[in-house]
Structure formats: C-alpha cells, structure tokens
C-alpha cells in the first residue's frame, strides 16, 4: 500500500515535471508568463483519447498527433496574443485555457463531463509485458511501476534535451529576450519568432505530460485539466528554482511529496475538507515563497532581476 502510494507520487512528480519544463522555458528563460499550459495539456491528452477511441488510431500514432495539435494551438495562441503586454498576455493565455476546458465540458466530441474512456489498451499491453520482467527482480507486485519508469525516463530525457537547448545560441537568444527585448531586437533577432518557438515547444511538452496524465488516470474528463494545474506547475517551478531545469525536477519531487504526504496525516476532517486544505496549503505556499525566496531553492537571483 505504502509503496504503491509513493510510486504514484513519483508518477505525478514526473508528469508535472515534464509539464513544468515548458513553463520554465517560457517564464524562466524567455520571460513569457504563460498561464495556459493546462489548456495545451488538455489538447494533447484529448487528441490522443479521441483519435484512439473514435478513430481507432494506434496509441503510439496518436501521441505525435496530440503533440502536433498542441503545437498548432500554441502557434495560434502565440500569433494572436504574443504582441500584447506581459500582463495582458497572461490574461489571454488563462482565457485560452478556460475556453479549452469549457469546450471540453460542453461539446459533443469530447464526451462532456462523462469524458473519454478506453484508449489505453496498448499501454496496458506494454505494462503487462514489463511486469514479469520486473518480477524477476522482485518488483512485480507494483502495477504502477512500469508507468513510473516510462514517465521518469521521458522526464529525464526531456530535461537533458531542454538543458542542451538552453546552451545553444537559440537558448541564449531567449535569455536575451527575457533580459531586454529591445536590445535583442536591435541585434537583428526576430523576437516574435523566438517567443513563438518558445511557446510552441512548451505546448509540445504539455502535450507529452497530457499523454501521461491520460495513461495515469485512465480516463479523460475536463476537471483533470483545470487551469488551476498551471498554478501547481508554477508553484513547483518557484520551489525548485527560477531559470533552472534541474530545479524543476527537485521542485516537482518536493512539491508532490509534501502535497500528497498531507494525505497520510490522520485527521478527523471530511474528504472534501482535506481536498480544500491541500489547495489552501498550495496557496499559502505560493504567498510565502514569492515573499521569502522568489528565485526558489536552486534559482539564481541574478536571473530574475526586476524589470520595469
């Protein structure tokens, strides 16, 4: 029981780690306050679910399709709103995420609040193939372990990829945009195009996270992709460290350990009250960290100089 519980925490940490890599790229390295990440995640996950269930696609083909659609959504949102002031951009992205959630809740193609079910047979097959192999090293009893392994392999691979990208000239231009947009433009860089690429890549990462969310919860419904989860992403981002990909991993593990750990505390509260309490904890935590250590644990304060 207890080990299954912590494996599940690890799965969540890995999934939201992937999700937050995108936020780190946008907010930490490009200076873009993207608050619509949950919307991109929903688009990725629902594309996979609907293509498999309604169109009979293979799960493995539906994943790249989901990524492509999320990237297209990212390009669309970016072209429409990247020219706005940073606070207007934040409001526009949050509106985008609400529109996505609202559409999924009310449209016929997404199954409304009933959601999408029965797309994970191919993943179950892979998982069942891995379990006997895990049994040979004595870990066959933990049914979520295969997902944990796959999620973390993907997370580590994507984290290294993002770290690598950040060291390229492309990554340095992004940081230039974050520090001084006008100066970067004066160097002949197309600031808009770089921002657009940053947003599209973040959307792709969100779609991958959405794919794993789908495998984890086994059925898709709109509340799984509530815009609030973007705020969770930002909470673990600032916990781990601003402008640090390693910080995303640390932040995600710490955040989910602390948050899920509260479930283990024996209380006389009702289930609803416990759920509320967890959100209150996240809220208080956001208030405290913004005040006390805005750059996070691994962040460098010089990376987030206050801009006018």
């Amino acid at each position: 029981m207890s080990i299954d519980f912590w494996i599940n925490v690890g799965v969540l940490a890995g999934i939201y780690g992937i999700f937050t890599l995108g936020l780190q790229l946008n907010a930490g390295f490009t200076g873009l306050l993207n608050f619509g990440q949950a919307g991109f995640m929903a688009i990725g996950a629902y594309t996979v679910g609907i293509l498999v269930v309604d169109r009979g696609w293979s799960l493995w083909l539906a994943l790249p399709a989901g990524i492509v659609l999320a990237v297209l959504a990212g390009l669309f949102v970016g072209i429409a709103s990247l020219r706005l002031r940073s606070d207007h951009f934040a409001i526009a992205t949050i509106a985008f995420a609400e529109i996505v959630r609202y559409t999924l809740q009310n449209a016929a193609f997404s199954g409304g609040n009933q959601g999408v079910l029965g797309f994970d047979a191919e993943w179950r097959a892979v998982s069942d193939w891995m379990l006997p192999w895990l049994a040979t090293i004595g870990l066959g009893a933990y049914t979520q372990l295969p997902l944990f392994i796959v999620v973390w392999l993907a997370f580590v691979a994507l984290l290294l990829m993002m770290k690598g990208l950040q060291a390229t000239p492309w990554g340095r231009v992004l940081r230039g945009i974050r520090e001084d947009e006008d100066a970067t433009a004066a160097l002949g860089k197309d600031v808009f195009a770089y921002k657009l690429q940053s947003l599209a890549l973040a959307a792709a990462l969100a779609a991958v996270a959405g794919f794993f969310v789908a495998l984890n919860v086994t059925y898709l419904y709109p509340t799984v992709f509530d815009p609030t989860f973007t705020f969770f992403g930002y909470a673990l981002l600032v916990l781990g460290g601003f402008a640090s990909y390693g910080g995303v991993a640390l932040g995600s593990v710490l955040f989910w350990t602390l948050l899920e750990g509260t479930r283990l505390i024996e209380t006389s509260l009702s289930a609803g009250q416990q759920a509320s309490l967890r959100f209150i904890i996240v809220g208080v935590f956001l208030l405290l960290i913004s005040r006390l250590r805005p750059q996070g644990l691994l962040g460098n304060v010089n990376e987030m100089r206050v801009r006018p």
Partner: protein
Amino acid sequence: MTDTTQTERTEARASVLSSALAALPRPALLLAVLIVLLCALVIAFGPVRALQATVNGFVAGSYTGLGAIGLTLVLGVLKLVNFAHGDLLVTGAYFTILFAWLGLPLPLAMLTAMLATAALALATEKIIWQPLRLAKAGSLQLFLSAIGLGLVLRFTVQFFAGSQVRTLGANVVTSIAIGPLRLGTLQALALVVGISAMVIVGLVLRFTSIGKEMRAFADNRALAEVSGIDTQHIINVTWIASGFLAALSGILYATAIGSFNPNFGITLLLSLFAATVLGGIGNPYGALVGGLVIGLSQEWSTLLFNARWKPAVGFALLILMLMFMPQGIFGRAKRRS
C-alpha cells in the same frame, strides 16, 4: 465606364460614412451599436424575447460592472493583476450566509458582509501587497501571490461551507410582470440595487475628492504623486472600495442567479477582466460600461446559441478586445513612457 464611377461613388460614400462615424464620440458610437443590435434582435426574435434578454443582460451587467470596478482600480493604481478578485466576490456571498446564520436579518447580513470583505481586502494590502511593493517584487512574484491568495480565499470558503450549491436563503419565488416581460422579484431587486449602486459609484468617483484622487492615481500615478496626493491613503481606499464593491457584486450575483458554489468567482473573473479591458484599464466608468456590454452580449447570445455557451461569449470578447483594442473602447492608445 459606368462600373468605375459606380465603385468610386460607393467608395466615396463609404469614406464619408466612416469619417462621420469616427467623428462621433466613442460612448455615442457604442450606444448606437447597441441600439442597432437590439433592433436587429427585436426583428429576428420578436420584441418579447429580445427585451427579456435585454433585461436579463442589465442584471448580469450590473454585477459584472460593479465587480470590475475594483479590478480596474487595483490594476490602474497598483499595476496588480488581481487574480484573487473573483474570490473576493465569493467571500462576500459566503460572509452573507455566515452572518445570516449567526442571526442577522438578510439585508443587514449583506451590508455586514460587504464591510467584512472590505476589511479583508485592506488586510491583504497590509499583509501581502504592501510588503511585496516595498521589496520591489517582479511581475511573476505578484502574479503568483495573487493566485496563491485566490486559492487560499476560495478553498477556505470551501473548507468551511463545502462545495455544494447554496442559496442566500431568500426563498422568494414570486415574479413581477412588466407587460409581457417577467422578472423574478429577486432579480428585479438585484437590478434596482445594481443600477443604483452603479450611479452612486459614478457620482462618488466624479464629485468627491477621494474619487477624483483615485481616478487621477489610476490614470497617471507619477503625476498624481507629484501633485501631493497621499499615496498610501489612496491605496488603502482603493482596496476598501475594491473589497466592498466585490462583495456587493458577489451578493448581487448570488441574489440574481439564486444558487452558487465557491467556484463562481473564478468563473466570473474572466468576464470581469473582459469588462476591465473593454472599458480601458484603470477607468472605473469604463468598467461599469464594459460590464453592461458584457452582460448584454452574454444574454443576447442566448437568443442565438445554447445558454450553456454564455460564459464563452465573455472569453471571446476578452480575447478579441485584447487583440484588437487593448486600450479599451474609451481609451486612447498610450505612448510608452
């Protein structure tokens, strides 16, 4: 030959028309657009349905407009995008339930709830916003603090009151008939209170010195400071007004809609942002007008689409405004300082 003259003539006429339109003051133009839309709806759907939707639109417009004033003042005066503002509306509605449960008669409970919410808003200034300002917090810090505060407010309400649907406890099911139009007594009450509150707020902003100072501050902070306005005093008053009107708006919403849960604030927040952007950020009159436009558009949209898409109209207006008219309908494009 005749073809070209025809085109030229049409073009000339079009340019005369457009320059005449541009010469009109923006409020008149807006009013004209709304009247034309209303006439179109009357023709398409008959006067009863169109006017009924219009009356509903004024109800929605009054709580949206009053809710948006606090948001726009805080944004204008403090440059703070207050993501927790929707949750102040919720706090107001649930404070009413609390005080009514404690035994106060409902109207008194509402008033106490507004005062309590105003005090809460002032407390957030002292505990959260003032220290962050003094520490010269960046925009991400401010965003995350506002989001954190919103979560704390919403889920504290949910912790104590639960997430089930509630009412304010005024179980009035009678309705008033004005000719063929029907309006629930509570909705009529919300409409009268909402419109009167809008007028009072407008007068206070226009004629009292504190109202003038607040507008001056929201419009150009540096200039206002130079002319000797007490900064911290204005900020305090802004929070008090923001909390008070947010609670009023939440209570009007609760009264007019009838049933609600602690999530209504976050759902309404985007409509409030839309009203704010529509009216021009920092412009409280604009927020009132923007709220009415949002309310009318949402209710008119129910004639065309299924009513469940109503909130989507607010989102769509918000995005269109941000894209094409970020300075608002009354605003002038500002030069960057």
